[in-house]
């Protein structure tokens, strides 16, 4: 089959390139990163155009959420590359005295990056930056659901980076399956948990380690002790300001108290009107829904019986242009589809509780999300939230922005994924940390070897306890008698 031939061919070429040692020198890695920087700068207009074609993504989002993040990621890697590549000395301890020990980072080899459709430029290039920095050869499979960006990447990458070591393989399910059947040294997948399971099962056949960046329902708890207007803006920015809610770290649903809900709703309505005007379906500042599959999926979530009558704001849609307006729902049933699946769209349910603490049990009744958010000025509540809620990441009093900090690991836990990246964590995701122990021929501890005697055992016990006399006895080769 052609897909298989393409996949096998790509992998073979990448393996040969990696074996030649081409990707190892720091100079090569830096050159690729600078190539990606140039690509992001010179091709900004084309990248924005592709994102507009695929998602009707507003130019600001394309710049702020995709291009500039790629740029800063490249710069961070270039700045730290030498440091990351340097072996780290560690204490060797008394047990193997005299000796030196260090941990050195080496590339895993040939890695596969499978990207997602919602941030099709960022989520393709950001992992590739880590793979290159760690000295690997990379196969990149962009999402076919964002076809304009996929073909743009296939066209641009060979012009800006070394195509013998970094290859783009386009295609849909057959092409992705063919790639997954090959043996890779690591697979990095961004997407949903259903496909995440499939990726991991393929990886299991070759014992390939994986990073899975998946989704979940990111909860936002809103306390009454907040600066409400700022909170509403930040929630809106993280929800509709991020690809119209089609982002893995977008607020999925809100939990607040019954008494505070009307104020929160009011504030959200005001903010939404300010951001998107009275006719949001016509706003240029909102991404559209990516395709009719997802449009129909979201419509079904809204139209479900017992849910459709809970819409308190928005709800308009335009099938022809695949637009759905920012929509707020109040107290939908907890067993409705909109509360069981990751929404990934512009619908925001608000669930009310009597006391704000009850939000914890609700969140913990669901699988661990990629991010959890709390808006509050109450230190005790924040402490309890931090301790009792498990999520990939957590933000107090904002949404989404933690992913811009390269010093924080970005990844999920439980259903939201395994492994992390960004900054140093990207390098670590694609490197093997090899321990190197260098012993001297001095310090020959005869107590180690048979014939085993009581005296030798005594010395060994002393060595394990770092007893100085035993150490000396061991090093000079005593056997402690019979």
């Amino acid at each position, binding site marked *: 089959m052609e897909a298989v031939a393409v996949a096998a061919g790509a992998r073979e070429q990448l393996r040969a390139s990696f074996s030649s040692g081409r990707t*190892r020198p720091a100079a090569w890695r830096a050159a690729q990163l600078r190539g990606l920087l140039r690509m992001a700068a010179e091709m900004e207009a084309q990248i924005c155009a592709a994102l507009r074609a695929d998602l009707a993504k*507003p*130019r*600001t989002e394309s*710049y*702020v959420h995709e291009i*500039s993040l790629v740029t800063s990621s490249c710069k961070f890697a270039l700045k730290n590359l030498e440091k990351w590549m340097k072996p780290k000395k*560690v204490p*060797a301890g008394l*047990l193997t005295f005299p000796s030196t*020990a260090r*941990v050195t980072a080496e590339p*895993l080899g040939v890695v596969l990056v499978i990207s997602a459709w919602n941030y099709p430029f960022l989520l393709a290039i950001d992992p590739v930056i880590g793979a290159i920095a760690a000295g690997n050869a990379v196969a990149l499979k962009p999402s076919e659901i964002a076809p304009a960006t996929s073909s743009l990447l296939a066209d641009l990458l060979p012009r800006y980076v070394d195509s013998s070591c970094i290859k783009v393989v386009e295609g849909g399910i057959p092409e992705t399956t063919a790639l997954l059947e090959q043996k890779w*040294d690591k697979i990095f997948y961004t997407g949903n948990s259903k496909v995440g*399971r499939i990726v*991991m*099962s393929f990886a*299991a056949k070759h*014992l390939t380690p994986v990073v899975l960046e998946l989704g979940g329902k990111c909860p936002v708890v809103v306390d009454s002790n907040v600066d409400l207007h*700022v909170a509403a803006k930040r929630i809106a*920015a993280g929800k509709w*300001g991020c690809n119209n809610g089609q982002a893995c770290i977008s607020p999925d649903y809100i939990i607040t108290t019954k008494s505070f809900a009307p104020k929160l709703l009011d504030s959200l309505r005001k903010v939404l009107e300010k*951001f998107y005007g009275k006719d949001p379906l016509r706003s240029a*500042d909102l991404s559209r829904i990516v395709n009719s599959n997802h449009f129909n999926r979201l419509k079904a979530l809204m139209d479900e019986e017992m849910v459709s009558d809970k819409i308190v704001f928005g709800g308009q849609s335009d099938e022809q242009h695949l637009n759905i307006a920012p929509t707020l729902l109040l107290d939908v049933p907890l067993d409705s589809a909109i509360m069981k699946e990751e929404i990934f769209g512009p619908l925001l349910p608000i669930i009310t509780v009597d006391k704000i603490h009850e939000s914890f049990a609700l969140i913990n009744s669901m699988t661990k999300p990629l991010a959890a958010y709390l808006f509050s*000025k109450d230190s005790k509540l*924040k402490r309890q939230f*931090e*301790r009792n809620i*498990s999520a*990939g*990441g957590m*933000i*107090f*009093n*904002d949404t989404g*922005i*933690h992913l811009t*900090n390269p*010093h*924080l*690991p970005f990844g999920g*836990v439980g259903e939201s*994924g*395994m492994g992390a990246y960004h900054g140093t964590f990207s390098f670590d995701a694609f490197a093997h940390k*090899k*321990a*190197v*122990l*260098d*012993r001297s021929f001095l310090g*020959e501890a005869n107590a180690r*070897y*048979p*014939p*085993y005697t009581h005296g*030798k*055992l005594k010395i060994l*016990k002393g060595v*394990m*306890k770092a007893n100085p006399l035993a150490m000396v006895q061991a090093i000079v080769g005593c056997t402690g008698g019979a």
Partner: protein
Amino acid sequence: MGSVPEEMALGFGDLVGDLREVYESGRTRDLEWRQSQLRGLVRLLEEKEEDIFDVLREDLGKHRGESFRDEVGVLKKSIVDKLQNFKNWAAPEKAHTPLVAFPATAFVVPEPLGVVLIFSCWNLPIGLVLEPLSGALAAGNAVVVKPSELAPSTSAFLAANLPKYLDPKAVKVVEGGADVGERLMEHRWDKVLFTGSSRVGRMIMTKAAKHLTPVALELGSKCPCIVDWLDSNRDSQVAVNRIIGAKWSTCSGQACIAIDYVLVEEEYAPILIEMLKTTLKKFFTKPEYMSRILNEKHLKRLSDLLADRRVAASVVHGGHFNPKTLTIEPTLLLNPPLDSDIMTEEIFGPLLPIITVKKIEDSITFLKSKPKPLAIYAFTRNEKLKNRIIEETSSGSVTFNDAIVQYGLDSIPFGGVGHSGFGQYHGKYSFEMFSHKKAVLKRSFLIEFMFRYPPWDETKIGMLRRVYRFDYISLFLAIIGLRR
């Protein structure tokens, strides 16, 4: 009761459910609790030391000297190290925050993964349970341990004693064979550590994929030992001592980090062989100083390796098997064919092939064509050769001028790469293996940058460009209106 007899726990649903409840109650997250568990492990090793020596002798014929050196002693040291450090490891770590997010503070907060499962192996049946167990407990998890049924006395010892020295509500031992392991894997875990063969590793990871359970696999491999010319007699003798220590003194070569085979220059091989023969006689004066082979199945596997006529012809020392005592004498082979089973499969026994090369550097080319092993060993004083080995080969770890000892160091990660597995532990890495590093960003409501929000226009985009270039001065001027 902390141990679950296999007949009673058919589905294990209750076991997992109970542990999840215990974990969710917060019991295991408490630092005092973790400390009490680690202390319990230290007491177990101290009070039951003789019992441990007994079960290791029953299961494997291990001498107490070996048992202390490789299992008990290393463990005690490592657990004490965890006791001293786990509070630091568990503390949130501040992360740098770019000014753009001002005012904000960022932390990385370690949290336990939850309910974890540890599969052990039969050859280091105490060490391969207690080391990861101590890491999982230090990290605040609830744990199920599944010891290997092929070391039954040790398995029974753990089932009887872990509930006595640890919190039986949060630490459970499940005994049994492969079917028990498979049934355990039908459930979702927050992490699984498996030590064993690649074949079973694949099954474990495939089952884990159904639940998105993250796994760490410590698998087998053929660990090579490169032996370079050593000028001084003393150095050569030290090297030979250490090679023997890393092959026959360690569970008769039945260890994932034992030396599997040696690579040496043609001219040096006879010298090495003579020294090995002499020193072997000096060390193994009594049969009890060598562990026995695990069981008949493995004895047959090892004797089958020698059944190949070409391989049998390459034996230069030893080769004698005793099926009654399940022992094999130390055996040296010179250049068995590279396509024979003994050179393609992990030996895991007291047979040592010696492969000759023309120049010692050729051993690097040889290794590059082979699957990545758990450890590469090299005895050499040649710094250039050492660097080439580090740069041009890949393995879990590299040790120069000794072998096996890397296992006892808490400061370096222990684990494989490629065929030899993934995931690392020992020391702080054991803690991290069973932790999730949660990113936490704390923002205040002060200072709102209007250019964050729609509706979008060129001015706002210009501001954002400045922000993302970390061009604070220009940004400040733009905000106060002095720049466009």
